[in-house]
């Protein structure tokens, strides 16, 4: 089973050092919650972990190999959901889901996309353009990708913002199931989450 390892990570934004000397090791079935006040570099760390940005110092290893040199192989094992949901206003919910999972390398047929949206509580709204959906519903469209992506590592930046309590429970269920199946998750959230049966590793950024 693969591991995700961060060694002595340093992040510099402009001429301000956000954090330095961050080390962690995440193993199969593990959840790492990145904590810290606003502006402490949580999003920057997550962007590094998914390979969008590179650390000023230190390295990130997936299964012992630097993610830079893995390229597409790493992207194929990882799903990143950022602040911006990647939901297009002019496309319908189902088109949004099908296209974003195609980008992630999964060809999704109409039926499966429909089921995933249904599961996320968007039944009956699949054919509405995303611009008429509420903030929370758009978030649900984004999160529906987790149901169909089939990747090992999930990197989630504030997945619970704008969600109502039933959706939060839904996401918790998804997370629990993913961990049970040996998946790994790195996430940030300001809300308290309870995950049954998983050791939560907390990474504190100051």
């Amino acid at each position, binding site marked *: 089973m693969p591991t995700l390892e961060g060694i002595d990570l340093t992040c510099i934004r402009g001429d301000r050092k956000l954090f330095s000397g961050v080390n962690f090791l995440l193993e199969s079935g593990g959840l790492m919650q990145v904590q810290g006040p606003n502006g402490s570099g949580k999003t920057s760390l997550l962007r590094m972990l*998914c*390979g*969008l*940005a*590179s650390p000023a110092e230190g390295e990130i290893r997936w299964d012992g190999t630097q993610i830079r040199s893995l390229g*597409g*192989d790493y*992207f*194929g094992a*990882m799903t*990143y959901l*950022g*602040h*911006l*949901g*990647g*939901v*297009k*206003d*002019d*496309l319908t919910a189902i*088109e949004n889901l099908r*296209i*974003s999972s*195609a*980008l*992630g*390398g999964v060809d999704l047929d109409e039926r499966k996309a429909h089921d995933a949206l249904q599961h996320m509580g968007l039944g009956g709204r699949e054919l509405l*353009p995303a611009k008429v959906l509420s903030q929370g519903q758009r978030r649900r469209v984004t999160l529906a990708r987790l149901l169909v992506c089939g990747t090992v590592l999930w990197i989630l930046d504030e997945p619970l913002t704008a969600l109502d309590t039933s959706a939060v429970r839904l996401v918790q269920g998804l997370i629990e199931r993913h961990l049970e199946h040996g998946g790994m998750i790195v996430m940030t959230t300001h809300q308290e989450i309870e995950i049954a049966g998983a050791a939560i590793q907390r990474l504190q950024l100051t």
Partner: protein
Amino acid sequence: MFFWILRRDLLLAARRRSDVLTTLFFFIIVVSLFPLGVGPEMNMLRVMAPGVVWVAALLASMLSLGRMFSSDYLDGTLEQMLLSPQSLPLLVLGKALAHWLVTGVPLVLMAPVLGIQYDLTGDALLVLTASLLLGTPVLSLIGAIGAALTLGLRGGGVLVSLLVLPLYIPVLIFGAGAVEASSAGLGAGAHMSLLGAFLLASLVLAPWSTAVALRISLE
């Protein structure tokens, strides 16, 4: 994957038709202003025609470059594209092709009609259209590099013209030159071959450079 992106961008263009139409009308109006301003001097208009049509095409395709990546950048789709296990240059090629189909092809189709205002002969119209058909995809491909480099910058629209217009010059020279050469009886073959060469070179090089530029812009 290439087709997914192509389909998606065409679908988006079909849902926001105003974006496509503004580019096309810009082209039509700019080309039509010259005969009105210069006056009905047929000989002069015939000489000016290729240059005017080509410059207008350049500016029109420039006008829509800003939208190529910026909407994807703002809603986070671009991040997902960069994190796709699929090849990024291929995705970029799909986007550039969609950009050309949406902004380039209407210009090519409109050019012969507009050329009539300049009293161009049938042959000249044919060469003009053919040169635009070969040249406008180059504009989309080179433009993609500029659009990627200026992503997320303030005043990116002006900067992109400063970056990209100089690179358009060879296309302009040989595109307009093709029509002049054919009118002068020299044959447009040489100019067309060069335009074809530009197209092939930019097909190979531009998607790669755009992919690198995108990675830099998003870091």
